[in-house]
């Protein structure tokens, strides 16, 4: 009796756990030929749709959806209906790679938007390269993704021909913030902290190098675990180091409590970081302690761009529950770039896509190199590495619980 109930219980718990984890994944519903006699092109999307970074991920998903909807309504590509297949990578490289494999396996998928995290991007690159499928990331900022591991020594080689991105890289994001803080804000002493991840460590490194080159002083460095919430000991160290500000290379789930605990420890100094701190969630988590903190982000502030006004209007009209966040505009442009590449291929191939999926994917990837259009975030185009030709960056500061633009400009090396 006891053994039977044991068996039933174990089965129930296991089944329960499996069912729950299955909640996150979507069924493969392959609807053939959604729009009458035309072809359907599926654009894959990979971002963290749940978990700590979901605020950014949902913004990416909604914006991509908006681009697909707009393309279908305007019949941007005659005879082609676009469809979006969003997958959740929970900000984990392993899940991202699984998603990539899944997208490659679906013959209707012609290109992928995403992901958000640089380490996830790293894990997906090869899968897409093997399938000749184009990938456009709205948010990966680590330089090695396009310029190879040796980029810092000046040996730039593009590792994967299928990888493109519309965001600028940490190679200029870190130095941009360093120059502004040293030259304009006259802050001379910094405490540099990073989370040891591809993105965070890279960003903190480029920042510290430039800051020291300018004549600033790094009075302390430390590293944290991205899942930690307790930074009291580090905060005390920061306070006693006499730093003018903290530079944090990492994402807001750890960045916000870190900034808050630094201020709580009695050091009334701002925490500055990269685009992964540029989120409303940052302010929600650090509350009043977020005041005065700064974050750099890629591109010009959307609210100041004429090209972005229509996007913001349409986004609001579409009635999405969540904000487009830091990467909404970039996600829209990434999706639009894939649509434009499909259009170029269709135009050249007598009004239809090549019948063979592999051939079509290859053609679209090649067409991506020449894509150029006026996007939400400015001019969209790619250089020989797959990096954006747009080198605009901005710095934001938290005022009254909101990130407001502080300065914006192109980075001059």
């Amino acid at each position: 009796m006891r053994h039977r109930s044991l068996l039933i219980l174990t089965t129930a718990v296991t089944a329960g756990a499996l069912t729950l984890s299955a909640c996150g994944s979507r069924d493969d519903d392959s609807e053939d030929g959604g729009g009458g006699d035309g072809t359907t092109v599926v654009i894959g999307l990979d971002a963290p749709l749940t978990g700590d970074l979901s605020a950014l991920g949902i913004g990416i998903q909604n914006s991509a959806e908006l681009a697909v909807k707009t393309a279908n309504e305007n019949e941007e590509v005659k005879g082609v209906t676009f469809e979006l297949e969003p997958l959740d990578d929970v900000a984990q490289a392993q899940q991202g790679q699984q998603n990539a494999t899944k997208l490659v396996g679906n013959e209707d998928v012609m290109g992928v938007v995403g992901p958000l995290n640089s380490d996830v991007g790293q894990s997906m690159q090869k899968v897409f390269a093997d399938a000749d499928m184009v990938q456009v990331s709205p948010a990966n900022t680590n330089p090695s993704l396009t310029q190879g591991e040796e980029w810092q020594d000046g040996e730039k080689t593009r590792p994967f021909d299928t990888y493109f991105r519309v965001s600028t890289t940490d190679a200029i994001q870190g130095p941009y913030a360093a120059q502004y803080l040293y030259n304009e804000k006259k802050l001379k002493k910094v405490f540099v902290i990073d989370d040891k991840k591809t993105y965070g460590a890279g960003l903190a490194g480029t920042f510290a190098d430039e800051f020291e080159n300018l004549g600033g002083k790094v009075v302390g460095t430390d590293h944290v675990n991205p899942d930690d919430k307790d930074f009291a000991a580090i905060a005390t160290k920061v306070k006693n180091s006499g730093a003018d500000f903290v530079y944090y290379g990492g994402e807001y789930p750890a960045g916000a409590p870190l900034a808050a605990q630094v201020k709580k420890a009695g050091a009334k100094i701002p925490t500055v970081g990269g685009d992964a701190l540029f989120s409303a969630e940052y302010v929600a988590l650090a509350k009043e302690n977020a005041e005065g903190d700064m974050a750099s982000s890629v591109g010009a502030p959307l609210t100041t761009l004429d090209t972005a006004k229509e996007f913001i209007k349409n986004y609001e009209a579409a009635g999405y529950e969540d904000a487009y966040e830091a990467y909404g505009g970039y996600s829209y442009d990434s999706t639009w770039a894939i649509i434009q590449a499909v259009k170029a291929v269709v135009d050249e191939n007598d009004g239809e896509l090549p019948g063979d999926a592999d051939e079509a994917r290859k053609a679209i990837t090649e067409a991506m190199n020449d894509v150029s259009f006026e996007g939400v975030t400015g001019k969209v185009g790619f250089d020989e590495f797959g990096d954006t030709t747009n080198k605009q960056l901005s710095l934001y500061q938290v005022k009254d619980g909101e990130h407001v633009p502080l300065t914006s400009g192109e980075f001059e090396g």
Partner: protein
Amino acid sequence: MNDLPQQLANGLLLGALYGLIAIGYTMVYGIVQLINFAHGEIFMIGGFGALTMWLWMPNGTSLLVALPLMILMAVICSVLVGVGAERFAYRPLRGAPRLAPLITAIGLSIALQQAIWAWYPEATKSRPFPEFSGPRLDFGAFTIERGELYLLIAAPVCMIALGFFVSKTRTGRAMQATSQDPDTAKLMGINTDRIIVMAFAIGAAFAAIAAIAHGLRYGEVNFKMGFIAGLKAFTAAVLGGIGNIYGAMIGGVVLGLSEAMATAYIADIPGMEQLGGGAWKDVWAFVLLILVLLLRPQGLLGERVSDRA
């Protein structure tokens, strides 16, 4: 080293938090020799219970007024889940090989985490938790956050109350008897099933109290917070001598202090720059654990078998 008092205070507070959670591991282990890996999630659910109560409060309620109700709600939620876990997940497995309940505990831990993730509104990301505002309390050599006063009061009060309960009351003594020899205790007329439920309930209540301290200290709760906190608390329980309630608290404090010291000072030792700081604090904490277990396999207070409860 002039920040030593402050770093000691940081470590002590963190350690008290670990200790409160560790009580749950140690009590359950002391009585049924089960490592309840779902205890971290019971802690997490307490945090969400308190948050729910706070969200029910009318806007503008002072946190001080709401706090007793939040504690009550957190304790109710945690105890319900803790006792439910004992009744439906562990009791059917009593007498089964030791690995069966252990695996069940791990499965339950994942299931509870995912349940909150899936069904608590907006719990897929961190939920902000109310905090006490106002300047820090200045004790001269060190300062602490207002919200941390709660932890500073709650931890010793809980410990004293538990110590009194275990050694002086009838139920407490029955608990000690059960932990020493469950079969004989049963023959002496002790309802061991009830005692086991009590152990789970007390552990869960302490975890709930710790969860509020966690929320007040870090300003957020999230569905994953039980994993790391639970792991650390389990370490604290082993460090102090698993099965011993005072050991759990002492193990927690030692662990918290060693983490703070490792973060603050290891990097200052010449030649150790790369091995210090926040990223290495867990490594040093576990080095300490291994050293303690090499010298005293039973943990710091492990020999006081008679106090097991």
